[in-house]
């Protein structure tokens, strides 16, 4: 990609983790900040219990809704294996943010395949710009595992140039009204928890 003002972010997880909503909120933040923005996602059969990803790109003018391999500034992975699966999209100096969680696929549960045990240590050794975050505590505090997507955004927000209020505005515009307060709370907790200390969490 020739443009340098472009920011490319990939969210990766599994069906039901709220990956697409995370992308939608980021898009809203970028649009409100005056950027052109595009996103790409996959619906339908591929979504049933499968891997789900969502590419978000923003800049002056965005053409492709897909990030090119080796072009992602950030990959935000909602669990270990999906982080590994997306690695060929990461820029050499791109950042990998990984939720410390293993979601076992059906075939692993059925004993037909194995879930690798060393993903976390492998990432620490091999991906220099990686950040592993604990989301369990925050999710417990807000009493909702469904806020995982917002919690992941809370961590990501520390890296991006948007102010906290614009994230909160976008959350208000995007999530269902009765969940707004809980989600704002979840965002705030992870934002503060990780502010200024993300890089030393590796």
């Amino acid at each position, binding site marked *: *990609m*020739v443009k340098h003002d472009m920011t490319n972010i990939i969210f990766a997880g*599994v069906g039901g983790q709220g990956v697409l909503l995370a*992308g*939608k909120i980021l*898009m*809203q933040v970028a*649009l409100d900040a005056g950027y*052109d*923005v*595009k*996103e*790409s*996602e*996959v*619906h*339908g*059969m*591929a*979504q*049933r*219990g*499968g*891997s789900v990803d969502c590419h978000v790109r923003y800049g002056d003018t*965005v*053409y*492709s*809704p*897909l*990030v*090119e*391999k*080796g*072009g992602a500034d950030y990959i935000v992975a909602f669990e270990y*294996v999906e982080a*590994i*699966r997306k*690695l*060929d999209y*990461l820029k*050499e100096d*791109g950042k990998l943010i990984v939720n410390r969680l293993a979601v*076992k*696929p*059906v*075939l*692993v549960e*059925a004993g*037909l*395949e*194995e*879930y*690798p045990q*060393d*993903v976390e240590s*492998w990432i620490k050794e*091999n*991906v220099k710009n990686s950040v592993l975050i604990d989301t369990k505590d925050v999710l417990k505090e807000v009493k909702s595992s469904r806020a995982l997507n917002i919690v992941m955004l809370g961590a990501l927000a520390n890296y991006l140039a948007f102010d906290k209020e614009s994230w909160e505005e976008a959350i208000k515009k995007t999530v269902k009204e009765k969940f707004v307060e809980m989600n704002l709370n979840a965002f705030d907790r992870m934002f503060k928890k990780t502010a200024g200390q993300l890089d030393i969490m590796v």
Partner: protein
Amino acid sequence: MHKKIMLGNEAVARGAYEAGCMVAAGYPGTPSTEILESVAANYRGIKAQWSPNEKVALDVVAGASVAGARAMAAMKHVGLNVAADSLFTLSYTGVNGGMVIVNADDPGAWSSQNEQDNRHYARAAKLPMLDPSSPEEARQFTRMAFDISEQFDRPVIVRITTRVAHSQGAVNLEEPKKAKLKPFERNPKKYVMIPAHARPRHLFVEEQAKKLKEYSETSGLNRIEWNSRSTGIITNGIAYQYVKEVCPDASILKIGMVWPLPDKLICEFCNNVDELYVVEELDPFIEDYTRALGYKPRGKEIIPICGELTPEIVDMAINQKVPGNKIPSYYGKLPGRPPALCKGCPHGYVFNVLKKLDLNVNGDIGCYTLAVLPPYSAMHTQTCMGAGIGMHVGFEKARGEDFIKKTVAVIGDSTFVHSGIAPLIDLVYNKCHGTVIILDNRATAMTGHQDHPATGRTLMGEETHELDLELLAKACGVRRVRKVDPKDVETFERVVKEEIEAKEPSVIISLRKCILKR
């Protein structure tokens, strides 16, 4: 002008609303489903409906058009196969109110049984086809399509692909036109296609094709973006965006109207660039056309014909970019995450029994098709909507009554209503003995729980007559119709054994609501 982030499919719905569309019909199918859902949710003035299948939907839309309303049908690529019979003759009748058919292709077969390239339909049915490359163009082109339809008296196809349908972007919201009925006039020479009427209408179709070709040259839907003339790329749809991204210095002929193609523009472009390329997803549609005009572009020799394109595929093909990444790859094997039936899915109980009894299973289209995969591995044929019951008949015709005792056909409730009824009639009519299991989970589940005639609810959320599948099967001539809850595994297994042994046709309605449905 107000800007809003929209999914490509939502932008199509918005375009129809802005154009004053009054009637919209379709059948759910990825990647097209959200078009009608968005119409029903956001533009309540449009009468939107799920029809039993795409052909019915297109006929409804044609009727609305002839009656004077602007109307839109929406379906996935294989849905247009179902509606194709109507499509080819609607090309002859033309329209009264603007008629737009939105067709969603699925390169990559993310959620489909094939990767067919429906641009061929436009050429074969002699219909104009627009091919937007972004959500904003999806809105603009859909809106324009209604005007083109009325101006040239042609149904217009708007073709989107998965990466346009399911990508989001900023969309400009324009003021809607006021929806207005045109007068209905009896005109059998235009709307009754007996051979004596069809022949002159064919002449009309060819005359309009010439006018549309002129429109294709000058409307701006097809346009040249001059840049360096050493490289020229003809491209359309989402591929345009990838080309803009990875070849910022090249000259581009952007094809937004993919049929009819603009000969003069193509020649002007080809005559003024050194290296000529065509970058398009799926078939060499524009490439073959350009070759027929006497040029020799590089196209499918470097751009794959199978699967969807990505920016890196285009980058590799045109710029010889070497793939490679400084980030190391994980050394081990990663577990797959194939789509699977949900925990507690009613289909799971059914397929456990079919697997245990070691039956051959003629399958169909829906979530239950996933039973072909482990841990069930219990489906042995599946082609397209409604095919399973007809194949079941063929199994018996080929291998006889004893063989069919070891075989069942399975089909979902929505799929059965879509195109399973005629083959069930065939099964009885042609004296077969097979057993058909209707997997009734009370929804079109795979595409997101859309309603259908047997759920008793419409797309607009109204209560309606609930089609009784048991009565329907009986009316087809099946005397043995059993309704069983598959979660009662013992009973279910006993019923299956009894029905496959029966010396006459039988239908088992396996009734349990989808686990995800509230």
